[in-house]
């Protein structure tokens, strides 16, 4: 019962944040909306016993990534109202209908779909160990060590490439 209440509250918070992201006129509000969604989703992770993922979500996503977003939004100017004139007049309603259809479809699938594959888990009392740092770290550094190293390289690429791309010299052609 408590779970259901937390789910409903946090689910609504996540949706409200998401709506802010896609609707807000000011980009800063959009970023703050995403922050709300990320926190609500982190609570949902805890509800699902994914404690470590919840911590990563808050530290990496809400902490680092969103700060980066806000930084760039400030840098390119918040006072610039987005140009909301449509080149294609009917685009927005069409997209709205499309997104609505996806929601309805997904809801129908999940609510009425044949979901018997689920091993009856409702009655099982979850083990507390699942989702702790130990439980996640052990496979991460054994089975997935290759993927782990690859993501390390991916972050290096992002850093080095981003500097190369965003860096401008005063006179493009003289030094290097």
């Amino acid at each position, binding site marked *: 019962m408590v779970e259901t209440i937390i789910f409903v509250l946090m689910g609504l918070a996540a949706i409200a944040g998401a709506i802010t992201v896609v609707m807000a006129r000011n*980009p800063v509000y959009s970023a703050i909306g995403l922050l709300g969604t990320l926190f609500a989703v982190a609570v949902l992770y805890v509800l*699902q016993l994914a404690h470590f993922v919840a911590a990563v979500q808050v530290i990496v996503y809400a902490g*680092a990534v969103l700060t980066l977003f806000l930084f760039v939004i400030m840098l390119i100017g918040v006072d610039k109202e987005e140009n909301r004139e449509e080149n294609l007049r009917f685009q927005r309603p069409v*997209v709205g209908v499309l997104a*609505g259809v996806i*929601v309805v479809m997904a809801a129908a699938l999940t609510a009425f779909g044949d*979901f018997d594959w689920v091993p009856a888990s409702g009655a099982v009392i979850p083990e507390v160990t699942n989702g702790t740092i130990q439980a996640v770290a052990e496979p*991460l550094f054994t089975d997935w060590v290759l993927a782990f190293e690859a993501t390390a390289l991916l972050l290096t690429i*992002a*850093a080095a490439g981003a500097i190369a791309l965003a860096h401008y010299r005063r006179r493009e052609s003289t030094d290097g």
Partner: protein
Amino acid sequence: MLVNQFLILAAALFSLGVYGLLVRRNIVLILLSVELMLNAVNINLVAFESMIRSADATGQIFTIFIITVAAAEVGIGLAIVLMIFRNRRSADVSDLNLMRW
């Protein structure tokens, strides 16, 4: 546990992300919408994981990888935004129609 409800929530977030991606003009906002979609995927994976409870927490591992990759992609995307902003003082994709969108 509640699994179907989580899937519906994830579907809603994913759809909102798709909507934002198609409607918003500012590249930064498009990126934010993509983050919504990736979060929806993560909710899916964590919910499934709590149901399946595989031996080595595969769903949660997948989620951690997605978060990491998303961080890298944001870095790349914002570098592109800055590059464009320097060239044309705007981060609006509808300005980018040299070659037809």
